[in-house]
């Protein structure tokens, strides 16, 4: 099977030379435009139609999917929280315009699904190597880019203009590249794209193939000849107008719509005021009124109406030209261009003088320095008069064109089509590396990304910050980000942190996936199944409305695992939030490599998602040992005066399970000190209400925590789920005896050193606590040995070295 290239929405016949050459280089062609297919077939070149991949049964699939989506979307939108997505500073548009919005959105989505399904058919039937777009800013084109990306097929957009920044932020505008690559006209537009935040490697400079014919000597028609061909009076001046058009009216386009009319009025006023009155050529934008389904008037009727309107200004010699562009430009003494337009370099190539009419200063790549004149509505007539009366000045301005043209149309040599063909063939060649490459001598650049919707001072964030510091020490260029969609252009590796919150974590990973860079991921998967049940159970058991008898009954059922809360049971694969496990599966599909804190973590993750093959590395956490090793109990004693106590350093919440520790210590006389923030005030209240001899000290500085660990008889952390709790590592290096849960990674980190307990059993916790409290410090040598092992094994520099190995491996794989 020959390799294929799909030319999607490439409709300008000016691209036929490019397409023919691509075919001659051994590629099968698939096109969407019947006119181009007919032209190719007429030349004896086989070209398949995209329509042949749109099978009748595809429409059934679309219908089925649309039924699902519209039902599910209606359900989703019944949630008031989802409705907030449509509100903002100007209120919500849902009440009055929402129905029209969703009807239209559903139409667009149906089109997208049709395209995606048809693309699947095409992929199965061909050896597709590349999709080339004439433009990639509508929903169908963009859905196709995304579908191609799913199959690893690169996409290229052939630029259709020189983009510059608009005054308003237009959603979906082409300032941010959508296809994998864009072929632009010259170095100037390339730099504009880079300045807008796009990756330089994705911007290919070819020049404009559609302008190649302008360089043909046969098209350098003398002015008199051009006028004769158009039947113009050779003795009177000729002005040519290149008006803009209104693509669609939303608020911003409304201004443009009014502006178009103002500009045309200014031009007609200016022409009417000149003697002799110049001949005016008007070339409408080819895409104006391009939708035949919406038309009520013929072109002729519109032209007649426009000419009537022009006559009302006293301008009678107007010609509307839809063809003969080159003749018209060469015939004109001066072209009038509405604001910044790609017509400008075209006029420069054809060596024609021009006036740009704009009310604002020129902000794009076109300036007066490159040889254009700028006017506003008020001085347009005088500017045109001055230029018409002064041919030498016009010639002096045109003499500046050659200097800037090579940057506007690459090399200014009329060979852009050849370069476009080379770019297409290179991207489509199997042996070609179409991915951006990095210079081996440059520093590896990594973005470590979290989000601001979680505790940015919590454990996961601390791991990110410490890893970043240690990577920097290894001479890696590291930045931290808490943005949901941070700019990624300058990085080689995107390193995301934390599953939680799953919806935002997934959203961020999807965004990273679109950046087409290796994604490394620290999930911190804690296997919340039991924890979720316990969280609900604790709320049920300690509900203040509960009688003491009921509470005891519930507690017994909790301990023996028979308590069912809100249909949730201890042993089921409970989801922390609905759809969580499906979200996890998608996360795993997106990321290239997972950094886990323990083998246990990856086992649980694989089990719960049923994803058997996950590239992973255990990158154990480091611990900042020095402050804990060298601390003394004095600071804590001085500050709080509490002695002979059991300590728990952790955020006070249901997962950390302080309440069962409180239950376990009832009647033992052992004081309990809790240090850590609290984001679940009701839970803290359960602890303080039911605790005996309980001291809650809130979040404390590191030196106080270190001193507390030295002062405590033992540290207890009977969690339902842990990664590698920093508090346990710190307790170990502080030589503090530990009571830990038997649920997670504790065995891997601490072996037989701690006192293990079942977190759901107060009796089990009590047994471990009593032994640790009474005998934990009896063998200081064992505590010291554990401390030394933890300190030497679990360092941030070790974690960074492992992480760096992963980065290098992922970059090599690509």
């Amino acid at each position, binding site marked *: 099977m020959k390799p294929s290239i799909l030319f999607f929405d490439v409709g300008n016949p000016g691209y036929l030379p490019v397409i023919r050459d691509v075919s001659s280089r051994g590629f099968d062609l698939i096109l969407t435009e019947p006119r181009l297919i007919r032209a190719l077939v007429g030349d004896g070149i086989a070209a398949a139609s995209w329509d042949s991949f749109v099978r009748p049964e595809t429409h059934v699939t679309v219908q089925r999917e649309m039924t699902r989506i519209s039902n599910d979307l209606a359900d989703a939108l019944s949630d008031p929280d989802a409705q907030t997505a449509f509100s903002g500073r100007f209120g919500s548009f849902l009440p009055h315009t929402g129905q029209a919005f969703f009807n239209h959105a559903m139409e667009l989505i149906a089109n*997208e699904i049709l395209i995606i399904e048809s693309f699947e058919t095409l992929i199965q039937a061909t050896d597709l190597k590349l999709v080339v777009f004439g433009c990639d800013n509508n929903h169908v084109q963009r859905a196709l880019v995304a579908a191609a990306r799913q199959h690893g097929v690169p996409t290229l957009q052939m630029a259709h203009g020189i983009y510059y920044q608009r005054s308003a932020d237009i959603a979906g505008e082409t300032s941010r590249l959508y296809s994998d690559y864009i072929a632009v006209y010259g170095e100037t537009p390339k730099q504009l794209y880079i300045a807008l935040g796009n990756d330089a490697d994705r911007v290919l400079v070819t020049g404009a193939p559609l302008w190649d014919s302008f360089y043909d000597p046969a098209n350098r028609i003398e002015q008199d000849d051009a006028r004769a061909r158009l039947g113009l009076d050779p003795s009177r001046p000729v002005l040519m107008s290149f008006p803009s058009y209104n693509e669609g009216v939303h608020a911003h386009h409304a201004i443009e719509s009014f502006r178009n009319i103002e500009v045309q009025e200014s031009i007609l006023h200016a022409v009417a005021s000149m003697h002799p009155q110049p001949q005016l050529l008007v070339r409408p934008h080819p895409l104006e009124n391009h939708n035949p389904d919406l038309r009520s008037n013929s072109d002729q009727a519109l032209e007649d109406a426009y000419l009537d309107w022009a006559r009302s200004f006293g301008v009678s010699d107007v010609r509307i030209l839809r063809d003969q562009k080159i003749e018209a430009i060469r015939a004109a003494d001066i072209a009038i261009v509405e604001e910044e337009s790609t017509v400008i370099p075209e006029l420069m190539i054809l060596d024609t003088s021009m006036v740009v009419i704009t009310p604002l200063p020129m902000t794009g790549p076109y300036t007066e320095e490159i040889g254009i004149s700028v006017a506003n509505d008020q001085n347009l007539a005088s500017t045109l008069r001055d230029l018409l009366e002064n041919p030498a000045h016009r010639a002096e301005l045109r003499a500046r064109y050659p200097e800037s043209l090579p940057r506007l149309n690459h090399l200014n040599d009329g060979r852009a089509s050849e370069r476009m063909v080379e770019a297409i063939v290179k991207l489509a060649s199997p042996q070609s590396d179409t991915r951006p490459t990095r210079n081996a001598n440059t520093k590896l650049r990594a973005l470590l990304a979290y989000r601001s919707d979680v505790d940015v001072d919590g454990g996961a964030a601390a791991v990110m910050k410490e890893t970043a510091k240690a990577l920097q020490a290894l001479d890696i260029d590291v930045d931290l980000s808490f943005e949901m969609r941070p700019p990624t252009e300058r990085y080689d590796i995107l390193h995301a942190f934390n599953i939680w919150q799953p919806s935002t974590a997934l959203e961020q990973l999807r965004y990273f996936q679109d950046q087409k860079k290796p994604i490394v991921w620290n999930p911190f998967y804690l296997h919340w199944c039991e924890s979720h049940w316990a969280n609900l159970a604790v709320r049920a058991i300690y509900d203040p409305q509960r009688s003491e008898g009921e509470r005891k009954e519930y507690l017994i059922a909790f301990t023996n695992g028979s308590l069912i809360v809100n249909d949730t049971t201890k042993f089921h694969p409970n989801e922390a939030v609905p759809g969580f496990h499906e979200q996890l599966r998608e996360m795993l599909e997106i990321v290239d490599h997972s950094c886990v804190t323990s083998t246990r973590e990856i086992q649980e993750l694989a089990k719960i998602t049923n994803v058997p093959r996950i590239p992973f590395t255990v990158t154990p956490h480091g611990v900042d040992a020095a402050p804990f090793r060298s601390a003394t109990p004095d600071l804590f004693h001085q500050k709080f005066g509490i002695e002979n106590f059991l300590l728990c350093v952790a955020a006070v919440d249901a997962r950390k399970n302080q309440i069962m520790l409180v239950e376990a210590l009832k009647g033992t006389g052992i004081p309990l000190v809790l240090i850590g923030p609290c984001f679940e005030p009701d839970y803290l209240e359960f602890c303080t209400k039911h605790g005996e001899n309980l001291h809650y000290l809130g979040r404390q500085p590191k030196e106080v925590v270190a001193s507390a660990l030295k002062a405590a008889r033992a540290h207890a952390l009977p969690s339902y789920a842990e990664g590698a709790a920093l508090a346990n590592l710190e307790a170990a290096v502080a030589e503090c005896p530990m009571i830990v849960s038997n649920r997670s990674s504790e065995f891997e980190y601490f072996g037989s050193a701690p006192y293990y307990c079942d977190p759901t059993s107060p009796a089990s916790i009590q047994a471990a606590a009593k032994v640790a409290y009474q005998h934990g410090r009896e063998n200081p040598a064992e505590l010291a040995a554990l401390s030394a092992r933890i300190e030497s094994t679990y360092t941030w520099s070790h974690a960074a070295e492992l992480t760096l190995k992963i980065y290098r491996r992922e970059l090599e794989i690509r």
Partner: protein
Amino acid sequence: MGVNAYAAHCTADDRNVAYPIHTHDIVDVRGDIRGTHISYRCRSCQHVFESYRETLAGVSCGSYPCPSCGERAELSPRVFVEFASQCFPYSDLGNLVDLTNEASRIAREWYRHPKIAAVLRHRGVDLGEPTERELLSFVSDGLLRERRRAKPGS
């Protein structure tokens, strides 16, 4: 909707002569990505109908037949500007830019809401993101209408 009372006594020749539309003949102006659509009230039969605003050189021109009675109404650029100025009552470009920016934010964000995002996927493709540009006009139009309701005459 009006009642067709005109067709009974109009002739084919009468219908070929367009009358100029005044602002009071225009009921509404609506925009979408395909362009502007204007709702007219036919001066002859009072039927209200919507037509795509056709332009040449960006200038509104052309005439529009009433689908009910066939009477043709001709739109001039200035009448369009006059009426549309009432629909887009922002004399200041900055205000319109501000509104467009806010509409763009919503067009980019609505489909990212976790509950909606979970629905709008097909074969791993996010179906919301490709619609941004085309739905912007709906959002923008909706926000403008909401604002006009909240502050009539603003």
